[in-house]
């Protein structure tokens, strides 16, 4: 077996696609998505990106909805370890590559780190225009009026956008990008991030990227505020932090408790090491 499971030609092709994606921030690049021991729809895009860029000097962290311990995160992490012998960690600070499904870590990323997103549907226009040919023309023309009208309609009827996750963003004032189904809460973290952000969609065979320090703004009207999930008055039951994205859990007796979604953040905060 070759290093990183994929053969060298496959890795070369994926790397070329990644380079092209980095050169055009927010632009969707097609790539030849390979067969993997994991089914499509379970993170094969993110996985291929990670396998193409990882080497012995890297430290890998894998999270699913913020948690290192979820079944999918564990399986993917074990798989990558088995085909690379790379060091793994739960710590956001120590990782050089973080593969994530649907969340951005709470702790700020640094230069030199790479965040690899698992993306189900890579094109944000799919939410407003089902025809792929028309989507391509819209991207070419920077015609995102349908996204704006959706925002207008929601604002007229409800006062604000109804989008809770996968909020459309505009990259360098040019391409509208799908940030993957991260909560609205995380959208602002994309902007001017010190880390390199790579997005892989295996089933849809697309890769796109945000080089460090890229301008990424959520699509919003000039005169409206960008409101995110509000956790005012709530703290994590485990670490007592009030600064993170919280999960709401129902106890057997019917009461609700809140816990940090990002497990490493919770651990670190609890140990006072933040």
């Amino acid at each position, binding site marked *: 077996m070759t290093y990183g499971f994929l053969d060298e030609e496959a890795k070369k092709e994926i790397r070329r696609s990644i380079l092209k994606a980095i050169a055009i921030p927010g632009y969707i690049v097609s790539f030849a998505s390979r067969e993997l021991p994991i089914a499509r729809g379970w993170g094969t895009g993110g996985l291929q990106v990670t396998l193409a860029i990882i080497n012995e000097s890297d430290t890998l962290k894998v999270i699913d909805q913020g948690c290192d311990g979820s079944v999918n995160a564990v399986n993917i992490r074990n798989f990558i370890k088995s085909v690379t012998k790379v060091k793994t960690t739960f710590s956001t600070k120590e990782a050089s590559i973080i593969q994530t499904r649907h969340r951005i870590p709470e702790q700020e990323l640094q230069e030199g780190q790479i965040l690899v997103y698992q993306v189900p549907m890579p094109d944000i226009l799919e939410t407003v225009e089902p025809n792929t040919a028309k989507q391509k023309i819209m991207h070419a023309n920077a015609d995102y009026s349908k996204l*704006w009208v959706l925002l207008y309609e929601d604002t*007229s009827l409800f006062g604000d956008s109804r989008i809770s996750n996968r909020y459309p963003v505009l990259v360098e004032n040019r391409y509208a990008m799908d940030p993957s189904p991260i909560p609205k809460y995380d959208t602002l973290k994309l902007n001017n991030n010190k880390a390199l952000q790579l997005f892989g969609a295996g089933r849809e065979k697309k890769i796109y990227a945000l080089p460090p320090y890229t301008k990424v703004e959520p699509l919003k*009207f000039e005169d409206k505020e960008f409101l995110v999930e509000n956790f005012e008055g709530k703290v994590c039951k485990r670490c007592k932090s009030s600064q993170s994205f919280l999960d709401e859990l129902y106890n057997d007796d019917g009461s609700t408790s809140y816990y940090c979604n990002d497990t490493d953040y919770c651990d670190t905060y609890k140990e006072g090491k933040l």
Partner: protein
Amino acid sequence: MILDIKNLSKIFGKTCDMCLDETGAKPNSSICPKCKSIVGVNRVNLSLYKGEVLGIVGESGSGKSTLLQLIYQDVKASEGEIFIKHFKDKEGKTKNILDANLNELGDLRNSIMSMIYQNPRLGLNYQFSAGGNIAEKIICSGVKNYKMIRERALYFLDKTEIPNSRIDDYPEYFSGGQQQRIQISKALSSNPKILLLDEPTTGLDLSVQAKILDLIKELQHEIGFSMVVVSHDLGVIKHLTDITVVMKNGQIVERGLTDQVLEDPQHPYTQLLVSSIL
């Protein structure tokens, strides 16, 4: 001159060297005898000045609607040039709009020209509310301020006498005449310099027709855009236009002041048309 059309032609089919010469008003045919292609528009030359309203009249198959579609570029021309005063290349020279790339075509439709179709289904998006449709056009012209967008949408709906309370209703819940009026609001909301109308009232009830023609004329007086109206109905032409051209088999057979074309038609075909008014 705000619109200048030079030698515009549209041929459907194989095309050959005889198409344009062997078809037209005199041969009384639009079908090329050699290659059987259909010549929809045959070497049309037209010009329009600011604030003028041009009517294009003709019977079915005359090429009048095709001509409009060529200007708006819903259909690709076979040959010819169209110049619009406000459409310039990087050096500031007026450029043939038929050479416009995708981005430039978007600009043309967003801020210079608007089209009102006979069937509102072609001009409106039924997935958006009435206000949403107008908002789309306003957003395309560059406005990203919600309050401004909403106010302008209300303003233009008001202009076409659609009650403000219905701004969030979907087009299918309006009558045909109202849908047409929403289309007009939408077309005007980007402040176009040229408005193209393709049979704007055909198919509507007579009373509705009268109201909409009035409305269009009033708006044209008030805002001052130039207009090209295509109709087979001479009454509509008489009501709306200053200058009229008559088309037959893809060619213009007569051009003149509207009152002159209707009261003192020169071309035999025009005389036939005018004498056929009920």
